[in-house]
């Protein structure tokens, strides 16, 4: 079975080729069969391989398959090689599993779209690229997937390209990602220059020998790689593309901009844990950026009115959470949250899609309300996802979030300030999620009559994926129960071989902590504290948006300055516009009008004009008369003779 590793990415690629090449000649039913079928098969293969991997003893859980040598050039060697280890196994299960559910959901969601075949072709191409990203056995091949998902993200954000805002959002995502990719590339160059290989395993092996722990080179490498992660995973300062990416179809937002692609940065850092563990300063940078993003995006999420934008900022914030975990060297916790987040955030987006579908494409929550009785299934699943993301006990989000908070608090790389930010963010998250829930599903029905008459629960093909994801959102966290529950943390053990270099053994900040960590009293205390804060936040949301809806408006007008600042997203887009976009546009116009049109074109055209003028003035001598030619010839000879004789 392990020989069939290549099937996992190949199946969606085949689906893409079939759908992409023949979409004009195929009925919709067949397109959806191919698209969902290939991803579903890929999921089954992943599942089999996962079970096979699980059957192996822990230290041998690596399946490698080198398809062929891609770039053999002197010292430089890059293979098209696949690597299945516990980390990539988790990733492929998430990508193909959640991806399959979203494919199925899309069959219902996109049923009436005229770009049906194109949509599924892109979606399959995305799944292929993402699988390449997580299965690659070296940085360069990973970069192929990295760019592939970026391309698909661009294509799918701008899927409705006849809308200018969608086309612009696609461009924005692509260009902003390019900035991050630049950092990733440079980081890759330095790794090769220093270590002579880009293979993950060789890099992990050689890094501690070559790099001085805490040295400048390894810190630079890690920060450059992190720049790539910042672009792809939408962290400060490159997060601006993600909220705009909501212009794409909602299942795309669920798959690419919540569950899989945006988590690629977290995956990459977890994959490079052997490097990061050598660079505490880079880890600090990761933690600071993650913490800042988590808090910052959560505050914006508090006041947004577009249902998808709230979720987008929530995604940015949760990604910040994952980076915070990576920043304190708790890579396992980061990946754990990545997985649970994939479940509940995909569910939230798909639920929002179901709402938007029912609301005749209305996305503004100010015109929703009272949908609970019209969309019972959507409501139920959405409610579960809200509980999960808010960190209500026994839900998946609770365990992953709690593990991150505990690691932040106790790790030698952590700091109490990060922990405080984490708790505040958790409270804000609970607040805006319940605000979203109340505004959408409770209260007065604020939509117009026409929309209201159209309200309907989504078809089965959409609600079944919702229900499966809801189950996963509940039980997904149970594989990583904290130690204080007196059970082994299966997830941590599973990832231990991959994180070996990164120190699976959690180093605690102080001996005092170590003593109490044994008993688990502090962890339990922190857990309860966090829960209390989250409970207060939920109650606040309940009071403001359920009991006294008019309170929200009075609060907004009372703090109109802060409210407007948040509503306009801290004016960051405007600031970037003035500081970055405008100067680049001016510079481009300068290069276009002055350098290109005036200078280069002027030079080329001027030269041509010169030849033309000279020829024009010389042509009058070609009279066609033999006598004048003879005269000129004779005079010339005479002059020559005179020159020879006289000189």
């Amino acid at each position, binding site marked *: 079975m392990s020989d069939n590793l290549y099937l996992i990415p190949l199946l969606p690629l085949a689906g893409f080729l079939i759908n992409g090449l023949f979409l004009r000649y195929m009925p919709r039913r067949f397109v959806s069969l191919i698209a969902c079928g290939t991803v579903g098969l890929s999921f089954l293969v992943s599942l089999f391989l996962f079970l096979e991997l699980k059957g192996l003893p822990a230290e041998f859980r690596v399946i490698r398959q080198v398809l062929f040598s891609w770039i053999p050039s002197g010292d430089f060697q890059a293979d098209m090689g696949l690597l299945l280890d516990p980390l990539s196994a988790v990733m492929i299960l998430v990508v193909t599993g959640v991806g399959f559910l979203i494919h199925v959901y899309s069959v219902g969601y996109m049923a009436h779209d005229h770009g049906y075949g194109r949509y599924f072709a892109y979606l399959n191409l995305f799944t292929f690229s993402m699988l390449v990203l997580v299965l690659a056995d070296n940085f360069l091949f990973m970069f192929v997937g990295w760019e592939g998902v970026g391309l698909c993200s661009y294509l799918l954000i701008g899927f409705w390209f006849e809308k200018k805002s969608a086309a612009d959002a696609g461009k924005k995502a692509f260009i902003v990602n390019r900035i991050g990719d630049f950092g990733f590339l440079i980081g890759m160059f330095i790794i090769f220059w220093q270590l002579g290989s880009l293979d993950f395993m060789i890099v992990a092996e050689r890094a501690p020998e070559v790099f001085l722990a805490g040295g400048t080179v390894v810190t630079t490498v890690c920060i450059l790689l992190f720049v790539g992660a910042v672009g792809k995973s939408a962290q400060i300062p490159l997060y601006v593309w993600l909220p705009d990416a909501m212009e794409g179809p909602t299942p795309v937002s669920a798959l690419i901009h919540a569950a899989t692609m945006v988590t690629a940065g977290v995956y990459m850092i977890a994959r490079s844990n052997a490097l990061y563990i050598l660079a505490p300063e880079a880890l600090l940078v990761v933690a600071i950026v993650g913490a800042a993003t988590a808090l910052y995006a959560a505050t914006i999420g508090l006041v947004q009115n577009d249902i998808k934008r709230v979720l987008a900022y929530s995604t940015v914030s949760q990604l910040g959470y994952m980076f915070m975990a990576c920043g304190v060297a708790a890579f396992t916790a980061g990946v754990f949250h990545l997985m649970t987040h994939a479940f509940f955030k995909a569910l939230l987006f798909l639920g929002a899609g179901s709402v938007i579908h029912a609301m005749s494409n209305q996305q503004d929550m100010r015109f929703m309300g009272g949908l609970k009785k019209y969309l019972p299934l959507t409501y139920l699943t959405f409610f579960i996802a809200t509980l999960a993301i808010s960190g209500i006990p026994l839900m998946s989000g609770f365990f992953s979030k709690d593990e991150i908070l505990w690691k932040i608090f106790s790790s030698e790389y952590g700091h109490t300030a990060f922990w405080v930010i984490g708790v505040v963010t958790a409270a804000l998250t609970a607040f805006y999620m319940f605000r979203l829930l109340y505004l959408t599903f409770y209260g007065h029905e604020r939509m117009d009559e026409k929309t209201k008459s159209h309200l309907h629960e989504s078809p089965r093909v959409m609600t079944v994926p919702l229900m499966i994801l809801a189950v996963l959102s509940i039980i997904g966290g149970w594989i990583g129960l904290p130690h204080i529950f007196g059970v082994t943390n299966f997830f941590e053990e599973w990832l231990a071989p991959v994180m070996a270099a990164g120190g699976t053994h959690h180093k605690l900040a102080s001996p005092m902590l170590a003593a109490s960590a044994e008993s688990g009293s502090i962890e339990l205390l922190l857990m309860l504290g966090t829960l209390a804060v989250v409970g207060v936040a939920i109650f606040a949301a309940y009071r403001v948006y359920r009991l006294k809806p008019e309170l929200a408006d009075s609060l907004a007008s009372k703090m109109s300055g802060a409210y407007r600042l948040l509503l306009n997203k801290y004016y960051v887009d405007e600031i970037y516009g003035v500081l970055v976009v405008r100067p680049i546009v001016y510079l481009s116009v300068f290069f276009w009008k002055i350098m290109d049109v005036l200078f280069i074109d002027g030079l080329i055209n001027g030269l041509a004009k010169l030849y033309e003028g000279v020829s024009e003035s010389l042509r009058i001598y070609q009279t*066609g008369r033999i006598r004048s030619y003879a005269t000129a010839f004779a005079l010339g000879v005479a002059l020559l003779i005179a020159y020879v004789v006289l000189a």
Partner: protein
Amino acid sequence: MVNITAFLLVGAVLFGIGVIGVMVSRNIIVLLMAVELMLNAANLVIIAFSRVQNLMDGHAFVFLVLTVAAAEAAVGLAMVITIYHNRRTINIDRYNLLKW
């Protein structure tokens, strides 16, 4: 023995008349004759030098030139007749199709 200068002078004069003939004549027949004149001027000079140096090479060469000149005259006249058939004129200034 006549001084060679006289031969050279006659040759130069004949050649000059030929050149001027080519330059001023509008009649293509006259032009061809002027060309012949130039050839013969050259022949005369060659013969003169040949005599002065007592060598026979020059004589042989002059015969070659005469032969070529005869062939050239034959081809040239044939062309003139063909052109005349086409254009009904022997005015060389009207033969100016090869111009800008």
